[in-house]
């Protein structure tokens, strides 16, 4: 029982990472019906910008420790959000009326560019985040179930971000406009909605969250390399499909489920088999619910 609880907590932590990144895929798909393959690359750049930001701030603050994390996180979000908006502006908007294939190729192109840039700038070797920023102690919340301080922070931050995003999308005027644009661009324009601006906002929020997730993941694991974007990006993408692409609560749910299945598979069977188990289950879910768990509209335009 304790083991199960422990695994669940670990699974939810990984799931929260997937969910944060999956949100970016699903929001962009919602408004553009485009799989933004560049999203994984933006996420990975979040890890690199975070690394540089931390190193610079640690020098400037003369070893300020954990104090450096918050301003770095802000820098990461802002930088990656701006890159996201730039990508949309130069690589997607000009192709908006060019059918479905051209934007996908453009997205793949941006993904390769982001990855190559990272490798050329930072090198192909593993990078490690400065250690000791967050005390390593673990707290026993139940008998035999331990949560590290890092894990607690990651979970709290992720859930706050997701709650904030949910409220934004479902309770504000601009959030409602996003959902309207996802349903019908033309009618949205007839409502007086500046559709280009709403799309830019999506490319501000999705990559902003994704970039921050990159930094959090790198902090959590301590080291990473330029392939981070592919592995995590792909899993987050799968989470988005699993939850029902285009559906925001779906992306959160899909991420959690994938994280939990993977962790349970690794814990109860074996780490070598966790992917096999996870993806067999995913394929089964999709066979029975092709639109994903919360997707109503068919994943037709994929």
């Amino acid at each position, binding site marked *: 029982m304790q083991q199960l609880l422990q695994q669940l907590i670990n699974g939810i932590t990984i799931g929260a990472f997937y969910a944060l990144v999956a949100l970016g895929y699903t929001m962009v798909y919602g408004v553009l019906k485009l799989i933004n393959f560049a999203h994984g690359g933006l996420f990975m750049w979040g890890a690199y910008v975070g690394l540089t930001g931390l190193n610079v701030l640690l020098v400037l603050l003369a070893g300020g420790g954990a104090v450096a994390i918050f301003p770095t996180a802000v820098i990461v979000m802002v930088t990656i959000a701006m890159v996201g908006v730039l990508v949309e502006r130069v690589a997607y908007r000009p192709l908006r009326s060019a059918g479905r294939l051209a934007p996908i190729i453009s997205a793949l192109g941006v993904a390769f560019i982001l990855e190559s840039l990272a490798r050329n700038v930072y090198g192909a070797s593993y990078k490690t985040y400065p250690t000791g920023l967050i005390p390593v102690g673990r707290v026993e919340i139940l008998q035999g179930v331990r949560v590290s301080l890092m894990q607690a922070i990651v979970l709290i931050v992720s859930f706050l971000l997701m709650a904030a995003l949910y409220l934004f999308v479902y309770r504000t*005027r601009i959030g*409602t*406009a996003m*959902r*309207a644009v996802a*349903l*019908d661009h*033309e*009618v*949205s*324009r*007839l*409502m*007086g*909605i*500046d*559709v280009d601006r709403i799309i830019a906002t999506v490319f501000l929020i999705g990559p902003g969250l994704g970039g921050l997730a990159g930094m959090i993941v790198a902090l959590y694991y301590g080291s990473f390399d330029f392939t981070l974007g592919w592995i995590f990006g792909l899993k987050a993408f799968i989470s988005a499909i699993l939850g029902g692409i285009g559906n925001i609560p779906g992306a959160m749910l899909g991420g959690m489920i994938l994280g939990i299945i993977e962790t349970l598979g690794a814990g109860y069977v074996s780490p070598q088999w966790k992917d096999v188990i996870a993806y067999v289950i995913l394929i089964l879910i999709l066979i029975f619910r092709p639109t994903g768990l919360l997707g*109503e509209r068919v994943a037709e335009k994929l």
Partner: protein
Amino acid sequence: MLLLKTENLHTYYGHVHALKGISLEVEEGEIVTLLGANGAGKSTTLRTISGLVRPREGEVKFKGHVLNHVPAHRIVQMGVCHVPEGRRIFTTLTVMENLMMGAYTVKDERVVQENLQRVFDLFPRLAERKNQLGGTLSGGEQQMLTIGRALMARPSLLLLDEPSLGLAPMLVKAIFDTIREINARGTTILLVEQNARAALKIAHRAYVLETGRVVLSGPAQELMQDERVRKAYLGER
């Protein structure tokens, strides 16, 4: 006062020459109707006015401003609302959220509430259904929602594209009564209709379109008596 004037509009879809020089005028306070067979260019005329498509030649003028290069969402802000063909409500948004999207350009919350009250006065059914998802409304209710949603911006010119299409006869009458009511409350209306008889009955003036050209125009009363109109559009022989 002249509210809307289009001059020699030529609009294309790729190589399809849909409008071949449409000129028409709408005076403030009028109901003007556009009649014509399928494919005559009625919807394209409205889409050119609201900025969804651009004319290759000619001019759209609203309150003296040329709209040719004004983005569609800014045209709404200037007071032109277009209810497109085919009840395109936001199906997974609630009725209330649909209406709020209609008021997207209205920044003053007091004015939004005022407009909402007017819309609910006009369509009490929408008030009853305000928390329901748009997609769960009946056809007639969806049509009320598309019109109510456009009225949330309190436009000075309302473009209506076949509002009675696919509705039961009872509802058709109700929709035409509502259009007259909206006009009586001060909104100028440009109405596209297949139901020529009902449209001519409530309109002040009419234009008849054939393959992208205006072939007839004049006061609705006169057109109702016109031989050609009676034969082609009122089903008489």
